[in-house]
């Protein structure tokens, strides 16, 4: 099934600077595997070493969090939109370069 994966701003540098990627997949797991095989750098940002999705990254099928569906086994249908939503912390005095730490730009 062709599905669309929306890449969040902080991860776009690791996904060919694309805002979204169209993929063939039957489940969320297949879609993410397809995505990380196409963009290998993305893998360490999405998955921990044990292969589990990192706890500061959530994945949604349309508006539902896959943690409350069937996780990576969640099936997807044609036209579904998969969103990757990492935590971001920016907001006040610094630059907002805060995807992974509150470090200022160096």
């Amino acid at each position, binding site marked *: 099934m062709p599905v669309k994966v929306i890449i969040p701003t902080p991860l776009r540098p690791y996904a060919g600077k694309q805002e979204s990627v169209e993929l063939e997949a039957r489940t969320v797991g297949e879609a993410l595997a397809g995505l990380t095989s196409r963009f290998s750098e993305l893998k360490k940002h999405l998955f921990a070493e044990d292969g589990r999705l990192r706890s500061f990254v959530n994945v949604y099928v349309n508006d*539902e969090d896959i943690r409350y569906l069937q996780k990576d086994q969640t099936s997807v249908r044609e036209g579904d939109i998969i969103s990757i939503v990492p935590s971001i912390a920016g907001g006040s*005095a610094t630059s907002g370069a805060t*995807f992974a730490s509150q470090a200022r730009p160096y």
Partner: protein
Amino acid sequence: MATKSDIPAAQPQAKAAATLSKEEIQRYSRHLIMPEVGMDGQLKLKQAKVLCIGTGGLGAPLGLYLAAAGVGRIGLVDFDTVDSTNLQRQILFSTQDVGRPKIAAAADRLRGLNPDIQIDTFETRLTSENALELFKDYDIIVDGTDNFPTRYLVNDACILLGKPNVYGSIFRFEGQITVFGHPGGPCYRCLYPEPPPPGLVPSCAEGGVLGVLPGIVGSIQAAETLKLIIGKGESLVGRLLLFDALAMRFRELKLRKDPECPVCGENPTVTKLIDYVQFCGIRGEEAPAPQMTVPEITPKELKFRLDRGDDLYILDVREPHEFQICNLGGHLIPLGDLSRRVNELDSSREIVAHCRSGKRSAEAVEFLRSAGFRKIWNLKGGILAWSDEVDPTVPKY
């Protein structure tokens, strides 16, 4: 009131002065003539107490709109001073405020906007030691901070005290907004149980923020705060609003309360505030990465050698848009492209790599040394140090 609310309002303690003066009635007339606010809502605003954590990009529109709306007591927490790079987005401050404590400049601005309200100022860092004491007198806490440790601290303190946390965060041109800590609703840890490890930092080129973005996100936080106070409308409790200013698109995701949440779940394991800096795996506010020990050259040494006519090859590992801001006439290969473009470099020549502050170029030097380059140095302190020590006409950014 005309509409039925499905969210309970924050409950300010009853105050004696629950009336509006003639001047206040005139000031708030555009609220009063609207049934969703009306006299009842305006009195709730007057009695409300809201604590704003941070007076920066998000805190600026937030503070302005809360003060303008007549929120009776507004607390401000910040420890920073205004600098000129803030003015691109922190609309509480004017050029003449540069160098002043943000708290003082913000309080002046808000008191000027609305002299009838009480502004409490706390010129301090929010810490595990002072958070509960600071929060306890307020009905609603609004998180306008800029780092993970403080965000987890604000969340946990709100859950421990049972106070709603109006959350907003931004990155470049994207924002996330919701309301955490409302009775029955999810908290920040339900959404993100843990912060990202400090190792996964994007390159500095990924920094920056569109100036108007915090204006929009902070204004949405203000709207959510006002709605919680007057108890009208549909709050963002249980919904994460995503905003992309570049695409100009809002999206909405469902948030659920996690029954296993360590703070707000059925069997909480976090029952008091912890060390959030340690929890986030970083040592301090600036979170400097461990300095790599690579061969370095100081700006003065480099200048001396260039003046002497030594054949040095300057390698600039910043991004093209940074090169446009200022450059030292070096050969541009962004750090991310270096492994692919290493054949553009001649390992028999002496190479000095630089970036903005010396950190990315240290990575570049380390990489090139592992690739067999031996005559390579990192410009210590980067363009910033070059501007300070050699050529002040080079702008710092």
